[in-house]
């Protein structure tokens, strides 16, 4: 194991504790403070199964450049108490340079953390907090950890002020932050004499203007609204509920509506109905909900009704691991409908991209009159990051509609592009009946071979011929070996590629954003000069690898690096895999 557990340009902090200790809140404020100090960061949460009072940890990584994933380990683990914190040992990896801070009054630090060789520094947090009546212990923890990480006291206190809801306790808590900062100085002195100082935030001079703090789920919701969605049907499910809860008040503000449905069968059919009525519509769910929606998604394919379904992927199969991330719905999203049913599948590659990718999905769905599935995941959805304001899209959302009294109007006319004008209810002279039954160009149910072939071709052709532009995938670098991945795996993959480059090993990175339909021409262009391909993903069945092999030609059979959740892929882990792969060539 490397001595320095994390990349030198960032600092990683874990705050842990159980019920009432407030570590999630502290982590959020820490992130906000970093933003004030001009830095970037990401915060991931983890907790036990209890609804309240369970063990919890806020995992934060800060740096001068935009951060898209957690590092291999943590520079600091500060535990307010040790209750069941050992459960997080796999997620909170420590090394010999790491710092372990705990309250001696809360007992011994768990063996699993001590065994890493991390430097243990006891601090009587509870006693310190008691000395400032009315303060929360998590604010003390914030002061200590933020200062050790290199954040100025001003930024920490400003962040607390902005987040504080009860004015009469604010002063005590600002004091607690200051007290923590003071204690951190003592800790730093100890560290200097025992292994050296803790990693600190270097640089960071970005201004607040044009930067946001946002979660992946919120970004997806906003992307939907930017894309023009004005009707949402909602059924709550972990980890997608926040998309819907963010949309509920936001949609109202822009003149849209959110309806809570009785189940996913209802929510998917509701949005199809609303979209048939001319309003861009969307819902959000997770694996089990998507599974319930499949029949109706097929209806949207056959009747050519645009809809968007955001799938915030979690551990599967079945009820699986609801609060953890995995990329195991890919196979299902690209092929999980009965019949020959082409559909769009778009995968955001970061918290920030949740906005752009969802917006794009809405645009594509509307333009192509087809369902689009957005493959987000829990890691992006429920994590919060400081990002640069996502650029406005130049693409416009536009549905091809039929004008009133269009002569000889046929809803499912066999056009060259495959997209036929859609009559919106209320338009004179172009009424039709949308149908899941196979139909003629006029929309009359038909079991005739020529109609079936024509419509199947039409529905496939409209997706295949569309010009998706460069946004279909991000290709970075130029080497004869390429790493292909998608979604949240792209963060650690990109870091691994950067570290490899620093070691003199040159790799290209391809992050797929459009997963379906397949893009053979564009893939061939992107693979110019490539001899070696490896596919990286977070699932047990190597789903992307198999999908790519089914649909694309490669200069030689690709390699695969894959493993399932609940633990996220790490840059260091991927670096090792990539170096080994290159060596074997």
């Amino acid at each position: 194991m490397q001595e320095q557990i994390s990349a030198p340009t960032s600092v990683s902090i874990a705050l842990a504790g159980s019920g009432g200790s407030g570590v999630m809140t502290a982590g959020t404020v820490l992130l906000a403070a970093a933003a004030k100090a001009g830095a970037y960061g990401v915060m991931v949460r983890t907790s036990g199964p209890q609804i309240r009072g369970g063990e919890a940890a806020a995992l934060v990584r800060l740096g001068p450049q935009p951060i898209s994933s957690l590092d291999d380990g943590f520079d600091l683990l500060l535990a307010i108490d040790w209750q069941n914190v050992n459960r997080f040992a796999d997620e909170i990896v420590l090394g010999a340079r790491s710092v372990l801070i705990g309250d001696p009054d809360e007992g011994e630090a768990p063996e699993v953390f001590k065994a890493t060789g991390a430097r243990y520094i006891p601090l009587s947090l509870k006693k310190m907090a008691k000395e400032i009546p009315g303060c929360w212990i998590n604010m003390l923890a914030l002061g200590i950890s933020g200062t050790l990480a290199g954040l100025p006291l001003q930024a920490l206190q400003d962040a607390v002020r902005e987040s504080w809801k009860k004015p009469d306790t604010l002063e005590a808590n600002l004091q607690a932050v200051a007290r923590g900062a003071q204690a951190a100085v003592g800790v730093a002195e100890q560290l200097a004499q025992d292994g050296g100082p803790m990693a600190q935030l270097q640089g960071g001079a970005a201004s607040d203007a044009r930067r946001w703090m946002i979660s992946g789920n919120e970004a997806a919701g906003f992307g939907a609204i930017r894309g023009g969605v004005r009707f949402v049907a909602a059924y709550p499910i972990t980890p997608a509920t926040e998309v819907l809860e963010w949309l509920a008040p936001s949609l109202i503000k822009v003149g849209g509506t959110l309806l809570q449905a009785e189940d996913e069968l209802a929510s998917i059919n509701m949005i199809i109905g609303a979209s048939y009525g001319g309003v861009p519509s969307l819902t959000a769910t997770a694996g089990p909900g998507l599974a319930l929606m499949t029949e109706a998604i097929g209806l949207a394919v056959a009747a050519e009704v645009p809809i968007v379904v955001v799938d915030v992927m979690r551990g599967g199969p079945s009820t699986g691991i609801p609060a953890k991330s995995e990329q195991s719905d890919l196979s299902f999203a690209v092929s999980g409908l009965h019949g020959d049913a082409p559909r769009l599948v778009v995968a955001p590659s970061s918290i920030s991209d949740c906005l752009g990718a969802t917006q794009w999905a809405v645009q594509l769905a509307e333009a192509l009159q087809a369902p689009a599935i957005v493959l987000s995941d829990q890691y992006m959805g429920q994590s919060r990051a400081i990002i640069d304001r996502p650029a406005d899209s130049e693409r416009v959302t536009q549905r091809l509609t039929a004008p009133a009294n269009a002569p000889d109007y046929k809803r499912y006319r066999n056009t060259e592009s495959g997209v036929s004008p859609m009559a919106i209810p209320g338009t004179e002279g172009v009424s039709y009946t949308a149908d899941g039954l196979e139909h003629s160009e006029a929309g009359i149910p038909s079991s005739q071979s020529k109609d079936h072939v024509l419509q199947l071709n039409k529905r496939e052709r409209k997706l295949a011929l569309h010009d998706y532009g460069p946004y279909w995938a991000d290709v970075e670098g130029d080497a004869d070996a390429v790493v292909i991945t998608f979604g949240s795996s792209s963060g650690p993959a990109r870091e691994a590629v950067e570290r490899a480059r620093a070691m003199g090993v040159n790799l290209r990175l391809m992050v797929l954003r459009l997963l379906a339909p397949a893009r053979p021409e564009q893939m061939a262009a992107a693979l110019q000069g490539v001899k070696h391909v490896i596919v990286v993903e977070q699932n047990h069945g190597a789903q992307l690898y198999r999908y790519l092999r089914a649909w694309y030609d490669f200069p030689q059979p690709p390699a695969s690096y894959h493993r399932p959740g609940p633990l996220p892929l790490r840059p260091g882990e991927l670096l090792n895999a990539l170096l080994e792969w290159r060596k074997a060539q």
Partner: protein
Amino acid sequence: MNEIVNDAPAVPVQVLTAANFKSSYKPIWCPGCGDYTVLSSVTKALAIMGVPPKDCAVVSGIGCSSRIPAYTTCYGFHGVHGRSLAAATGLKVARPDLQVLVAGGDGDGYSIGGNHFLHACRRNVDMTYLVMDNHVYGMTKGQPSPTTEPDWDSKLSPGGTGVRVFNPPVVALASGANFVARAFAGDLHGTADIIAKAMQHPGFSFVEILSPCVTFRPEQRDWRKLVRAAVVPSTDDAGRAARRLMTDDGLNIGILYAGNRAPYQASVRAAGCSVAELEAEFAL
């Protein structure tokens, strides 16, 4: 099956206590959750029934309440959201010898499970359905359920859903349930008694149990002051029960209806015909 045991001690088939039905898994429900008492009531009721754990099955869906099977020593089935009644129906029809208990919350049972609820009542298969109603979706952190008041503010439905509450006892009665009762988790013995009677009653028995959610509906701590023993006694007259339930305010505790429908009978199997004999149909 076993004799009905009410107040007078009867001679049980097996001497079972509530402890025989409680597993060693500690529930993770929030302290103060009504479901703890429901669990105790269920184990007490099962002890009264005297059917050994191995012959009992507890079927559930998804939600806080649906975690209950693993906390008993019975055979448990923790299925998918809203489909517990369907799974339980399959189980009971295939295995009529088993005592089948179905459990879940108001979200699981009345929202996504609503359709299955109607048909389970119609079908009247002999089983008992317990809904731990806390007027909220607890597991997904506080969205309105079909029994939530229309003006209850939440993130998903700001200002309230504006939609009238679902009336489970009326719907159950109208759809054909043979036994309809309401219990309150705060009354352990009373609830155990109602559950036992529900299990003893043939056909589909439905018990709506008001079970407070201390985390998302802390005001439900007041339920103990508001609930009352139903003044009108139980009836077997569906019309009378319907009139009464349509004006029920949701706080009357007790057996509200105990009907006389014959429980579901799977089609009678004709006297055996061997597999070989079936060939005759095809033989030339």
